[in-house]
């Protein structure tokens, strides 16, 4: 059990900066998820922690010990890879025992550890099979078993669920959570899937182009995204963004975009004062928009034209044209019939508006 501390860690490939000055303090037994689009540096960060990639600067400490120059085998970590990385020429039992044999653990102890791991992961009947005789889900369980059998200080997961189909992925997510309760170990999980990040992480680190965008709990990221990138990355469907011009009135700000305007009380949004006469971006989550006229003064209303409807069974998703913007509305009654081109009225509480000073996604 150990904390993992990254201090000013960066990685440069030639002239390309892959990871820029990451500072991260992962507590003992914490489950942290690194999330971001392809090429954001999340896997590189994980590989640097594992020792598979040299760091260009900064320090990495595991359990209070700086491990910058230690070989992967000396860092007391275990890692699960995207494509399982099982040793194809060995049986499942030997795969699980490999790490312990390398550490010259007595055979009796190895047998006990292997059967314990196999019991935890329900892979006892598979122990004498070869990896190629297993399904994707079974292989992933063996890969997890290879991790827990060694009882390391830190688990590293490099997109372990990416190769599984959607149904199996959801199941493995649950199993991972259960496993966490049984084997509470510091874990760092890399994924590009925001749902995995939200469901698994105690804290989430959102990365883009080598920079950390925001670190926080899933709810913090959802409710208070630091910038447009985080706002658009976390939550499904993505947040709607509308660029509006700000003008100051007596006791409120008037925000206008093409064919639509609304007021926000000066007292509720004092930050807007510095943007009078300029444009800002407002973000609205699709789930926060309700069809119908506003029911109180705290809501703002708008009218739009339905472009497309998507039926999901328990809800409908709408794509609505609003002036020159297109927004998405989620959580619409699935029995409501809305033809493309029909006019709708909708409302959103001002508490659910997010204001971004940056008009484009920035770092």
């Amino acid at each position, binding site marked *: 059990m150990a904390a993992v501390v990254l201090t000013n860690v960066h990685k440069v490939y030639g002239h390309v900066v892959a990871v820029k000055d990451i500072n991260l303090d992962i507590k003992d037994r914490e489950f942290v998820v690194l999330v971001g689009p392809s090429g954001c540096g999340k896997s590189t960060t994980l590989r640097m922690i594992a*020792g*598979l990639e040299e760091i260009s600067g900064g320090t990495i400490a595991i359990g209070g010990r700086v491990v910058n120059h230690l070989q992967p085998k000396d860092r007391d970590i275990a890692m699960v890879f995207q494509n399982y990385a099982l040793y194809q020429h060995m049986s499942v039992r030997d795969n699980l025992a490999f790490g312990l044999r390398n550490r010259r653990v007595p055979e009796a102890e190895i047998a006990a550890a292997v059967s314990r791991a196999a019991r935890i992961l329900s892979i006892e009947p598979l122990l004498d099979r070869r990896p190629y005789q297993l399904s994707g889900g079974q292989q992933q369980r063996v890969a997890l078993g290879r991790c827990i059998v060694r009882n390391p200080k830190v688990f590293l997961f490099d997109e372990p669920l990416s190769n599984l189909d959607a149904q199996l992925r959801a199941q493995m997510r649950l199993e991972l959570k259960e496993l966490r309760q049984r084997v509470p170990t510091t874990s760092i999980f890399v994924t590009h899937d925001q749902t995995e990040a939200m469901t698994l992480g105690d804290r989430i680190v959102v990365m883009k182009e080598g920079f950390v965008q925001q670190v926080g709990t899933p709810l913090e990221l959802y409710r208070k995204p630091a910038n447009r990138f985080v706002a658009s990355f976390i939550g499904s469907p993505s947040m709607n963004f509308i660029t509006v011009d700000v003008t100051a009135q007596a006791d409120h700000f008037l925000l206008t975009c093409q064919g639509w305007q609304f007021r926000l009380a000066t007292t509720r949004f004092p930050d807007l004062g510095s943007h009078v006469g300029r444009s800002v971006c407002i973000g609205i989550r699709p789930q926060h928009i309700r069809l119908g006229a506003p029911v109180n003064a705290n809501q703002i209303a708008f009218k739009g034209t339905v472009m497309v409807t998507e039926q999901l069974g328990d809800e409908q998703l709408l794509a609505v044209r609003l002036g020159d913007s297109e927004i998405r509305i989620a959580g619409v009654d699935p029995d409501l019939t809305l033809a493309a081109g029909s006019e709708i009225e909708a409302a959103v509480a001002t508490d659910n508006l997010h204001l971004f000073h940056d008009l484009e996604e920035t770092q």
Partner: protein
Amino acid sequence: MTDIAMAPVRSEGFFAALAPRGKAVLFTLTAIAVCLLFAFPVFWLVLTSLRPGTGVYYVHRGTEFTIDNFHDVLSQEIVVRALFNSFMISTLATVLSLGVTATSGYMLSRFRGPIPSTWFSLIYIFRCVPYVAWVLPLYFVTQRLHIFDSYWGLLLPHIAVHICFFSWIMKGFFDGIDPSMEYAAMIDGCSRWGAFWRVAMPAAIPGLTALAILCWLYTWNEFLFALILTAHETPILTVVMAQFVHELGMEWHLMSATAVIALVPALIVTLFGQRYVIRGLRI
């Protein structure tokens, strides 16, 4: 007026004109023809080896067959020695070059940097130079090193050729093996070398087998180096076979018998490792 169902317009190519199963039949016939084309010389060779010396010029008409040719060639000491030498040199060259070829292919597949790129360039240059251009310099080098007409004089050039030609094939095999298996091994307690030896190498066994067979066959069949770099001390089968053409005439029947004998080990090796060789040739 009723609609007239239009027949789909067929392309008017050659295959379209054939009967429904005509394409399959044509393909099978072509395959048989190609097989015969390749098998016929071998068949003719075996037939010639079974004919008496006087009958080799009308193999297709004669009815007299004999196995004396095999007896004749195997009773010549030089042929037996050549068989032994060819077998030893092929086997030794294969064993000695495999170690270097495997590590060299692994380096080319997994590492980037000045050493791999220099090595890559060297191999590339070697491959670009016509094979025959190496023979004369090699002759002088083996003379200077006093290894002319010895095992080493032939082994060293063969090992060099194997390394240059087969490192590429080995690289292809390692490219096909997921490197994360080695990373997992490194985390599981192996050094970089340990991960190569204990995880990458076992996974590359099909590749190594293919390579061993290709190396062995290459040296077994090689003629030019053997002709220039050996003399009476170390006779090699391919050269001995050619010596049945001499100033007194051509002993086709003996040459054919020797060729059939030479064919047997190659055939055994190929049949044994056919599966791996095909995989090796695909890369």
